[in-house]
């Protein structure tokens, strides 16, 4: 008898003595290890039946694990791709509607910077451009970015140099644009000079210094823009915002990125910016849409899983009921030899728990393994086709906890009825059972 039992008994004895009564000595209960061993032996003694029952639970849990791993994994992959270049604390600002065109000029930028929680504001402009190379004229878009904007938007230079002043006449082009300009090897364009001509909207230039439709000018190609995400098929060029500002008297940009600190209320900042006439977007809008979509998928999976698990549970209940019928005399002799109701109850509940946990572990392993296998197979073919490898399998920690809780519930729910029946069976009735 352990110390806790001794303390418990002495407390109970004292209480009974207080009322002048003698406490009944009902001995101790069977050891947990013994009950577990007997339950395990019974499962092992009926190999085929136990295998089929555990297999049924395992298949159910396995299918749920497989679907959930895929569901969560694909959701995470999509969100990861969306947020890769767009951190959630960055607000996209654009210049409103056509009826209410407003530019991100120095004044509006200062106003935004003064909003509580805003840590940085960077702007961008896009203008029409024509490039002239040999006899070719190529219409394209020229983006003017601040270096801060490039950093926030994760716009990377593939090749070339960036160590020049922001007002210098240098430009980056996409590999495709370089090829159209006659450089079959895009890298060869770096350091070369091409002619260009810009077309700028009046709304974003200083009208007092208006110099639209200027002559063609020469500009040096400083490098190539990384365009891997579009498989190098884009046609655009990038230069520094200050270069365009100085050369073409820009007064503002059409787009911007506003960074807010993590603690700040992004929605409140957005609303303040929108009050100035700008439109705003945040990646959290997209993430919310994606999450809403996947939530519907998850509900469908839960319904599907519930149906599968109901079938498994019925199989388990059937097995345990048959097991009770087959072991009625065992229950009888155990009770005749002094086993208490609680011990018999535990024996059947543990048997249900062993079946359910074995099925749970087996199913989780198989389901997760199958999902990982599918991911490996997908990546094998992706690599063969020159695509990047991706991970679209994920099992959240709370799902593992939910599975453990579920198998515990399954064991208890299916075991309780046979266990209660066994514990209530009268020893003599059980011994006389044919």
């Amino acid at each position: 008898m352990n110390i806790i039992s001794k303390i418990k008994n002495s407390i109970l004895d004292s209480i009974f003595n207080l009322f002048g009564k003698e406490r009944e000595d009902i001995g101790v209960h069977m050891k947990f290890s013994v009950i577990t061993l007997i339950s395990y032996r019974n499962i092992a003694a009926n190999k085929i039946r136990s295998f089929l029952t555990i297999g049924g639970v395992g298949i159910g849990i396995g299918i749920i694990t497989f679907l959930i791993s895929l569901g969560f994994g694909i959701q995470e992959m999509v969100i990861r791709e969306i947020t890769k270049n767009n951190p959630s604390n960055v607000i996209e600002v654009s210049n409103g509607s056509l009826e209410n065109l407003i530019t991100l000029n120095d004044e509006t930028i200062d106003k935004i910077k003064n909003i509580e929680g805003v840590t940085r504001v960077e702007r961008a402009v896009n203008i029409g451009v024509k490039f002239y190379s040999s006899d070719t004229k190529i219409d394209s878009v020229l983006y003017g970015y601040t270096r801060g904007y490039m950093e926030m938007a994760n716009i990377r230079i593939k090749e070339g140099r960036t160590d020049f002043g922001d007002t210098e006449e240098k430009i980056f082009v996409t590999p495709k644009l370089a090829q159209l300009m006659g450089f079959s090897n895009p890298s060869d364009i770096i350091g070369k000079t091409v002619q260009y001509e810009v077309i700028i909207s009046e709304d974003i230039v200083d009208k007092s210094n208006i110099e639209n439709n200027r002559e063609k000018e020469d500009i040096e190609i400083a490098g190539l823009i990384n365009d891997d995400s579009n498989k190098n098929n884009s046609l655009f060029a990038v230069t520094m915002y200050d270069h365009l500002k100085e050369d073409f008297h820009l007064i503002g940009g059409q787009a911007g990125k506003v960074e807010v600190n993590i603690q700040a209320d992004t929605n409140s900042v957005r609303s303040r910016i929108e009050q100035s006439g700008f439109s705003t977007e945040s990646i959290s809008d997209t993430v919310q849409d994606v999450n809403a979509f996947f939530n519907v998928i998850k509900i469908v999976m839960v319904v599907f899983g519930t149906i599968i698990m109901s079938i498994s549970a019925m199989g388990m209940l059937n097995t345990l009921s048959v097991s009770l019928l087959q072991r009625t005399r065992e229950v009888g002799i155990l009770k005749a030899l002094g086993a208490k109701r609680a011990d018999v109850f535990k024996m059947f509940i543990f048997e249900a728990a062993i079946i359910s946990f074995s099925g749970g572990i087996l199913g989780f392993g198989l389901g997760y393994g199958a999902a990982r296998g599918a991911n490996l197979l997908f990546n094998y073919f992706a690599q063969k086709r020159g695509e990047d490898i991706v991970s679209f399998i994920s099992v959240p920690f709370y799902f593992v906890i939910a599975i453990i809780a579920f198998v515990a519930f399954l064991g208890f729910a299916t075991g309780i009825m046979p266990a209660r029946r066994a514990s209530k069976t009268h020893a003599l009735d059980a011994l006389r059972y044919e």
Partner: protein
Amino acid sequence: MGEVKIKVENIKKSFKVGENVIPVLFGIDFEIMRGEFCLLIGPSGCGKSTLLHSIYGLEPPTEGKIIIDGKDIWNYSKDWRAHFRNKNVGFIPQQAFWIKSLSVIENIAIPGVIAGASFHESIPKAAKLIELVGMSKWANHRPYDLSGGQQQRIALARSLLLDPQLIIADEPTGNLDHKAGEELMKLIEDINKQFGLTVVMVTHNPSQYCFGTRIINMEDGKIISNEVQERSKVITEKNEHNI
């Protein structure tokens, strides 16, 4: 005069079958002394097994008291009686029942594990008892692989695991052939003599009456005779009879 082990006071028992109440025992009174080998005899349906089950604490009497070692066992809870049976009484049923998934030696150890011990702690004692009943080589077999006589020997070993002072046996030889029955009876007698255990046994086999030191004869739910006989005298008579 010896110490009273079991006192049965005015035991009445009736069963309710549908609307009908069927009386089985009509006021039974007797005492069994410590160390006695008591046989409950009588024709089938006379109520001996019902009385035995009441003494064992499995069948509640409708009226009366069963006092074992000074305790009125039907005055306590079910769990108390379960613990009392486990700790103080060895039981040999008419047909031995087993935990199928356990080996012979593990089945002998069952009363120990019910009492809160582990198999590891109970098996050494079980090994000594299986040797006592001469079944050591069957220790690791499944119980249902054994013959009826062998199973009853194992049941005897199981009943002795927790050193009880009382053995209750319900026609333990009922399903055995004459030879196996005789061997089991001799074994029970040896244990009764060697360890001074009190034995209460139901039988309706007249050839076994010679083993008892007290014969309680029942008919129609009543005791018609309660006689004490000297074992040595009985055995001598039996031997003479055999000659």
